[in-house]
């Protein structure tokens, strides 16, 4: 019996496990192969919906389902202590779990994602409302509902973070939200971003900068937050700027999952060194890495994990079957970008082809909503 262990049952882990169960169905049915998914929570959170929850467009309860509901019945789900990975032991090809057991694997897929590193910036946790966590999304909504005018700063603390287009979406949705509530004239909206401009890809930056100008959003960049004063309500940058705010929204620093650091398999921010084409962990051909977990210079996004899942599932299945056919990941990413409360554009690109965002439209907005809704029944279940 060959064992494929999938570490993490979030977006990447779930899709790849379902794809593996489909690819290796005959072997699984003959008990020659086992796909085991390890996730400590057993709850699957659709994080992209948190942005909408922060504006009251989604119910938080609709963004969480039990992992069991999403996983193929052919996969084995280890959850709770049995699913809590305490060590990824690549030298001995095993995962250790919180119940004291060790689980040997033939192939490992690492998809333990990223976490928010609030403590990197003094005062940030006390001051920033962030839809980058579920509880923050609820506080974000309450704060917006109570807001009557003043200065709102949207700050991205550090790059990279998950959903790189998210801060653009949050700012443009917010601008529209304030207009609809008759508060736009009473509000100064400031976007403080760690690199020059509003986004890292030049032609997306150009399009978005123009939209920001048209909508009267002040851009302060580069702005690398050094500290926040929760009492004085000021945010200060390494570049020497200090901004006053009535509301501070945005994105805290990110890093890879703690178990990556505890297992000494990542860099200093717990990102795992990964070959950008094969998605294999460097120097470990039996370990594949996907989604937010990798150190690849690519978007940390659910769509990235989805595109990567085809490559990982095929390469693991081929390896199990003794075939040396291998697929390569081409850097594909697809992200909708909400440009208000009823319009959106999108970017589609890969390593070699830059994105060209089309003009924002209502059709793209509804496509984004449809994509979110179809996540549970189509994307997570690897139906396509």
């Amino acid at each position, binding site marked *: 019996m060959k064992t494929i262990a999938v570490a993490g049952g979030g977006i990447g882990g779930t899709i790849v496990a379902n794809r593996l169960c489909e690819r290796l169905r005959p072997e699984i049915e003959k008990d020659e192969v086992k796909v085991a998914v390890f996730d400590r929570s057993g709850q699957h959170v659709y994080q992209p919906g948190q942005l909408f929850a922060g504006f009251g467009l989604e119910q938080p309860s609709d963004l969480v389902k039990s992992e069991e509901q999403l996983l193929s019945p052919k996969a084995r789900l280890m959850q709770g202590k049995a699913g809590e990975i305490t060590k990824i032991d690549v030298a001995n090809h095993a995962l250790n779990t919180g119940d004291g057991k060790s689980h040997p694997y033939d192939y490992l897929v690492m998809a333990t994602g990223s976490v928010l590193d609030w403590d990197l910036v003094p005062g940030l946790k006390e001051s920033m409302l962030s839809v980058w966590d579920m509880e923050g999304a609820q506080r974000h909504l309450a704060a917006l509902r109570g807001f009557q005018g003043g200065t709102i700063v949207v700050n991205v603390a550090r790059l*990279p973070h998950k959903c790189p287009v998210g801060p653009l979406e949050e700012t443009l949705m917010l601008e529209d939200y304030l207009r609809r509530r008759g508060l736009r004239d009473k509000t100064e909206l400031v976007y403080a971003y*760690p690199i020059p401009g509003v986004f890292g*890809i*030049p032609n997306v930056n150009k399009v978005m900068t123009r939209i920001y100008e048209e909508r009267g959003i002040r851009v302060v960049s580069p702005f690398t937050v050094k500290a926040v004063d929760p009492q004085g309500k000021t945010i200060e940058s390494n570049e020497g700027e200090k901004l006053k705010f009535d509301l501070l929204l945005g994105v805290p620093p990110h890093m890879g999952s703690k178990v990556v650091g505890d297992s000494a398999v990542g860099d200093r*921010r717990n990102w795992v060194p990964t070959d950008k084409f094969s998605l294999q962990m460097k120097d470990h051909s039996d370990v594949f890495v996907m989604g937010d977990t990798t150190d690849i210079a690519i978007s940390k996004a659910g769509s990235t994990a989805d595109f990567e899942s085809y490559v990982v599932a095929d390469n693991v299945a081929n390896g199990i079957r003794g075939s040396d056919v291998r697929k390569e990941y081409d850097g594909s990413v697809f992200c909708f970008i909400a440009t208000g409360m009823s319009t959106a554009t999108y970017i589609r690109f890969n390593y070699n082809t*830059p994105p060209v965002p089309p003009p924002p439209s209502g059709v793209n907005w509804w496509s984004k909503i449809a994509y979110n809704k179809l996540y549970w029944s189509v994307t997570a279940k690897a139906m396509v």
Partner: protein
Amino acid sequence: MTSYMTETSIILYKTLDLTGQSCAGVVGELSGVYEEMRPGEYVDVLIKSDSGKKDILAWASRVGARVREAQSGGAAIRLLVDRVK
């Protein structure tokens, strides 16, 4: 710039392939890694375009990083970015 180490004492922290499209852009990706580095370490960066190089040089002069150009052995531009303080 504080006391500077000799060429030979500089340690490679990691290599960074920035030849593909990335949402954070070359400066976003590099600045994230730079923050993890300790003085005396460098990052070996591969980029594709002269505009990326220009952006990195502008960023480096802002944060006080030292940039050296090296042979890439291919079409890419290879920069060694030292953390000196």
